[in-house]
């Protein structure tokens, strides 16, 4: 078997790609310089400047940006399409894009459906009016689909913990010794092998699943805690507010890494402390759901009972199985449906714990602002209960900033998870998550670049996508 090159039979396109990227860089800088210079000139005449009718240098630079960007995107697309069709003939990139085929299909379907129904989809639909938001959403959904489909075993060609002898630190595109001709893409280590001779590409895909599993859920829990405490703190004020704010500031003043080191070490885990924190933190979603429904249906006891039973009974069973684990400090509950794998619960708890004070502060600030509005006064005059006002009058009106912050916070949580992995805290040692992989690879970084770079770039692109998505959402929600 031959080693694969990066682009295979499309290698003639590589100079063109680099050329167009260089042109893109140059034209962006030119455009910026020209527009600053032009802006200064225009403002000397008037605040807005007259619309240009003839081709200005600025306009030409803008055209250059557009054309070179188009060329670069076109070449990348050619690589992907060629790869999907011919696989390894397109080199490593071709083979990867063929393996990613389920992700491409899912992305295409999602974008097709969303764009065709975007007028009926509210804020989510409006996202597709903003190019920044769309790029961000695309990046995020790429990794989400990669994570989910990778967990269904549709992408990765190798087992992420399997070690193949002779593949230690091998460069990208190295064939596996003794692989048969009909093995297809699995005959190569597409992104090379790491220092334990495992496939970097497969670990990258499985690492996406760790992030997709933990980050959004942990952020959601942090929001539940922050909302349930922030609303009354802002609404009632007074002593409650002082006390809760003091607690939040206490956690916020803690350097994050110190907190992780104190919470996640095996000795502390043995005392059951993270589990006790989990008991408290994971109760908040239940409390939130219960209060939310009860405040709404309080006047209709039958509907109230029905809804509460429908939500709280499964919720309670899930809660108990989550915190209950055989062989740990909390193991009295008989109906344990699932066990969270070793260390994940601790990581989850510490991430929620670190994030919730910030959410609390945001919600409290928003509540302080919104509670002075007329519709809140109207609800108070109607005689609504405080919790109804908080959850059904104030919270829906605070949703814009909260959704934006939710996206940003998932990105922050992803970074935190990477930090935990980077220091080897909490997650099991063989875990394919990106932080651990970066940490494993950095020791030999001066000689072998390929093991830590793919997870680093993956993490970067996911967080970038979330930031762009948040930016797009903010822009679109402000436009209303």
């Amino acid at each position, binding site marked *: 078997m031959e080693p694969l090159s990066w682009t295979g039979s499309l290698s003639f396109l590589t100079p063109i790609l680099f050329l167009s990227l260089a042109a893109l860089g140059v034209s962006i800088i030119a455009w910026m310089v020209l527009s600053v210079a032009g802006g200064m000139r225009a403002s000397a005449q008037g605040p807005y400047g007259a619309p240009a009718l003839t081709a200005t240098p600025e306009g030409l630079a803008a055209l250059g940006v557009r054309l070179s960007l188009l060329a670069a995107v076109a070449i990348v697309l050619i690589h992907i399409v060629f790869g999907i069709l011919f696989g390894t003939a397109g080199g490593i990139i071709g083979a990867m894009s063929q393996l990613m085929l389920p992700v491409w299909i899912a992305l295409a379907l999602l974008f097709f459906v969303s764009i065709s129904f975007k007028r009926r989809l509210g804020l989510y639909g409006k996202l597709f009016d903003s190019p920044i938001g769309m790029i961000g959403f695309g990046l995020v959904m790429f990794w989400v689909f990669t994570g989910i489909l990778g967990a269904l075993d549709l992408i990765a060609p190798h087992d992420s913990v399997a070690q193949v002898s002779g593949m230690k630190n091998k460069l990208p595109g190295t064939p596996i010794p003794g692989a048969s001709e009909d093995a297809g893409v699995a005959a190569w280590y597409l992104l090379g092998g790491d220092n334990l001779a495992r496939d970097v590409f497969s670990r990258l895909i499985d690492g996406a699943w760790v992030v997709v599993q933990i980050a959004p859920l942990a952020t959601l829990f942090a929001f539940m805690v922050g909302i349930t405490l922030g609303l009354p703190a802002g609404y009632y004020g007074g002593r409650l507010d002082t006390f809760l704010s003091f607690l939040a500031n206490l956690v916020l003043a803690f350097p994050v890494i110190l907190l992780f080191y104190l919470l996640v070490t095996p000795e502390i885990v043995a005392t059951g402390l993270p589990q006790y924190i989990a008991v408290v933190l994971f109760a908040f979603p239940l409390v939130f759901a219960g209060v939310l429904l009860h405040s709404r249906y309080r006047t209709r006891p039958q509907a109230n009972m029905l809804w509460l039973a429908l939500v709280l009974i499964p919720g309670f069973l899930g809660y108990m199985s989550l915190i209950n684990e055989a062989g740990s400090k909390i193991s009295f509950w008989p109906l344990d449906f699932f066990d969270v794998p070793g260390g994940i619960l601790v990581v989850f708890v510490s991430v929620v714990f670190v994030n919730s004070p910030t959410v609390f502060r945001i919600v409290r600030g928003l509540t302080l602002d919104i509670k002075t509005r007329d519709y809140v006064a109207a609800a108070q005059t109607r005689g609504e209960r405080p919790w109804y006002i908080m959850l059904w009058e104030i919270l829906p009106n605070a949703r814009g900033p909260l959704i934006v912050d939710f996206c940003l916070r998932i990105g922050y949580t992803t970074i935190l998870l990477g930090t935990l992995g980077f220091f080897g805290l909490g997650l099991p040692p063989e875990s394919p998550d990106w932080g651990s992989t970066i940490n494993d690879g950095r020791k030999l970084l001066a000689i072998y670049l390929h093991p830590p770079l793919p997870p680093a*770039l993956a993490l970067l692109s996911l967080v970038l996508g979330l930031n762009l998505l948040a930016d797009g959402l903010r822009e679109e929600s402000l436009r209303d």
Partner: protein
Amino acid sequence: MALFILRRTGVMILTALCLTFIVFFLTNLYPNLEKLAKTEGNFRMSDEAVASWLDKNGYLQPMPVKYGQWLGILPGWRGATEDGITGRCITGAVSQEEADNAPRFCGVLQGDWGYSTRFKDSVWNIIEVRLGNTGYLMMWVLIVMIPTALVIGVLAGMREGSVTDRSLSTASILTTATPEYVSGVIFIAVFTSSTVGLKWFKGTANSAMTEPTIENFFLPVITIALYGIGYIARMTRASMTEVMTAQYIRTARLKGVSFPNIVMRHALRNALIAPFTVIMLQFPWLLSGVVIVETLFNYKGFGWSLVEAAGNNDIELLLGISVISVVIVLLTQLISDIGYVYLNPRIRIS
């Protein structure tokens, strides 16, 4: 103003007490003490031996008492063994008279920070040296970060929606999306490895502690600074765009003041109030950047000691480090509050 500072300082001391107690509590949980006993004494100690070792060294007193002694508001414990008298303020076993001469209180407040089992040195000496190293690193980070971030933010914010704004904003989003361990790894890969072959800088800052040069110090500084630049630049941009739509800017324009003059004279001062507090509030989070970068570049500073102390169950050093970092965080918060009041005439006068 004086009352405000007084109240803030009171809250700050309370917070510091709470936080140090939490750290003290977590590091003094029994499994941690058991590990300490085994590393200090003998790895094959039985459970009873561990308990008696801990008892002999004063670790089995009630938690608040131990905390009081560590803090220096309760007298240190004393115990009599066949060799003589041992205790918190006494090194080894000594005779009765020497014990009587030894100080009764010896805690953080008296300047006795304990002894590091990892570095075999007193905690205060270690912290002094390491904090100096980190301080030097932070100085350069701030020198690089603040001017760059402010210039980017002002340039982007002075003309909302322009090309400059959009490109600089995208660039700042990119840097905020790059945590230190990602940018550090990318920088090391591109600029130091033999594979790429640029070899402009060194991948380790080990020698930077004695003789810092651009070659060994640039990468750690830029790695920490980059993450902060994007964030501060975005805050500056937001504040700048808000100022640029204000009434007095419109008046200045109508008066015929030139655009550069408007930016420099009228907008800048008001736009820089918000970034000031943001920069101050960045410290807790620069601190975790420091831990990552010092580990990555093997620069033996404060963050590196934190990792070493936590990894080797060095309880007293860990406590000392947390006290220092908590105090730094709280002090910067206090400065940011006071600075905000001071800079903003609307609050200052009312």
